[in-house]
């Protein structure tokens, strides 16, 4: 079972649930940025929900299927075309051997997931098939696709069939204005009180520098750090700290100018003060933000974060039940 890459798209990589346990040596989680849509794609084609899929960013690939296959496309609105004929997103569709699958432009959201029944068969590295670009390993030869690449897929599972459909109410919402819930903490106390308040008042715009490592936001008012005698080893700028580990979802503001939220290919540490962390339930939302989408940061406490996490789990359970 094989797929030939005719056009690679902007940044198409193999991703799965991620690589846990190596952040202490700078190897991040990786894995699908929108874990909800990734699982939905796998469940649609009858795969284990953690099977490896293709993650496409902004511009989809063009693929020739060398064998019959069942595929499903979820996440952003990126309609597949079979030999030029439009097909459905959020639905398991049959692809005949020799067919070319291309994609319409991405109308809403930023990342689409293409699951193939049987999963993408690349070597497991440190417990995951996910691509880690900075380290150049995992996925397909440790990189995004190039024209001419040939991907192998595993044997289709018994439950693979065309026609299984994602109920509309269980699709990933793709708003152009997104609320991201943030737990203040880490070095939040280094911000002046007025500046901390403004962070939550302003509307921020996704900058062009938004990728799997981190999302940069602009157009809010600059943040001010409390002046201090910088501690030994911290560096001279008031936004500097003694280099420390960065949590996933943590927000750093180099020089106080543009907040950066680290995502699943995060740099694991550095010397910029982090002012809070996006809650785990909202990380998938970031994955679906295109440049120029807008974000409001909403201050929440731990109880709210845990309740949101439970809601997300419940929604995943509904998804599993609906696509059984």
């Amino acid at each position, binding site marked *: 079972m094989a797929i030939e890459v005719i056009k690679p798209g902007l940044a198409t990589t193999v991703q799965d649930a991620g690589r*846990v*346990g190596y*952040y*202490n*040596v*700078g*190897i991040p989680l990786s894995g699908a940025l929108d874990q909800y849509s990734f699982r939905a794609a796998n469940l649609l084609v009858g795969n284990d929900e953690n099977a490896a899929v293709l993650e496409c960013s902004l511009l989809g690939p063009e693929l020739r299927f060398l064998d019959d296959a069942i595929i499903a496309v979820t996440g952003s609105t990126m309609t597949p075309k079979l030999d030029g004929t439009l097909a459905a997103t959020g639905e398991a569709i049959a692809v005949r051997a020799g067919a070319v699958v291309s994609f319409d432009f991405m109308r809403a959201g930023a990342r689409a997931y293409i699951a193939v029944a049987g999963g993408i068969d690349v070597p497991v*590295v440190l417990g995951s098939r996910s691509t*880690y670009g*900075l*380290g*150049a*390993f995992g996925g397909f030869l*440790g990189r995004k696709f190039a024209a001419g690449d040939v991907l192998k897929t595993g044997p289709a599972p018994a439950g693979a069939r065309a026609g299984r459909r994602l109920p509309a109410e269980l699709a990933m919402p793709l708003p152009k204005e997104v609320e991201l819930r943030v*737990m203040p*903490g*880490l070095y*939040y106390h280094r911000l002046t009180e007025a500046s901390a308040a403004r962070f939550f008042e302003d509307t921020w715009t996704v900058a062009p520098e938004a990728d799997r490592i981190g999302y940069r936001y602009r157009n809010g008012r600059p943040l001010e750090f409390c002046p201090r005698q910088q*501690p*030994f*080893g*911290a*560096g*001279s700028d008031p936004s500097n*700290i*003694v*280099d*420390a*580990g960065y*949590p*996933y*979802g*943590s927000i750093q503001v180099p020089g106080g100018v543009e907040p950066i939220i680290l995502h699943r290919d995060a*740099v*694991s*540490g*550095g*010397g910029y003060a*982090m002012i809070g*962390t*996006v*809650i*785990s339930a909202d990380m998938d939302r970031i994955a679906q933000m295109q440049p120029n989408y807008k974000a409001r940061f909403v201050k929440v406490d*731990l109880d709210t*974060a*845990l309740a949101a*996490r439970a809601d997300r*789990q419940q929604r995943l359970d509904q998804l599993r039940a609906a696509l059984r």
Partner: protein
Amino acid sequence: MTIGTARYTPGGDEHIFVELSEEMSLEAFFKGMAITTALAQQKVPGVTEICPANASYQVRFDPDVIHPDAMLAILKRVEAEAGNAELDLDTRIVEIPVLFDDPWTNETQLRFRERHQDPTSTDLQYAARINGYANVTDFIAAYSGSPWFVSMVGFVAGLPFMFQMVERARQIEVPKYLRPRTDTPKLTIGHGGCFNAIYSVRGAGGYQMFGITPAPIFDPAQGLPYLKHFMAFFRPGDIVKFKSIDRAAYDAALDQVAAGSFDLRIRPVKFSLKQFLADPAAYNRSLLEVLHGN
């Protein structure tokens, strides 16, 4: 010198971040090593990442398995217990060959000179001058004379941050570039603030560039003997001694790397913080005897 009680703060619902000290010190680093080592041994269900850093550490966990309040209580208990422990560390000492003042980092410096504090000097000349050294030769002698602790591994895969094992008055400090470069050669020996870093992969960077090592320190293909165990060589707690080499030795080492026969001098060693603090210079000499013994 003593450090106060740790500061515990959430990193969302999946992390707890623990700042042991606002400023860098060997005591803070050692306390972090003691706590994270003890925590790893406890194999707490739900804990997925334990990441020691220079003067802090963070833990990532699954809050569906262990409630953040329970996680916090465990971390505070481990801190209390580790505070009474002897700060000894079973580790290893490694010799890293370095070609200082090399053509590749010098070429890169020239491409980004307008981002530097002193465009008329090289990074080495600038660092030597602002740290009070008469010339670059003396600076390199100090840099490669006393050993360094790997106090954090990260930023990108396998990149070590190191802290020199000397009194604070002798610590080498330099600012980062005014604006980060978009390029740094792979295996550059860099320095920013009081930290050394070896760039494990090519990429952006803001540290001053002093030289380059022929020794790969991160390789997913794991071709060299010392990378067989794991693709990233360095671990927090490693002790490193830099050895200044010339161009001929650098080229010879690169040939060995290509042939797969290059290896590093690595010796096991037990480090005692108490003995070190009593007489750093004498203790460092004893460490180097271990490194060069057989």
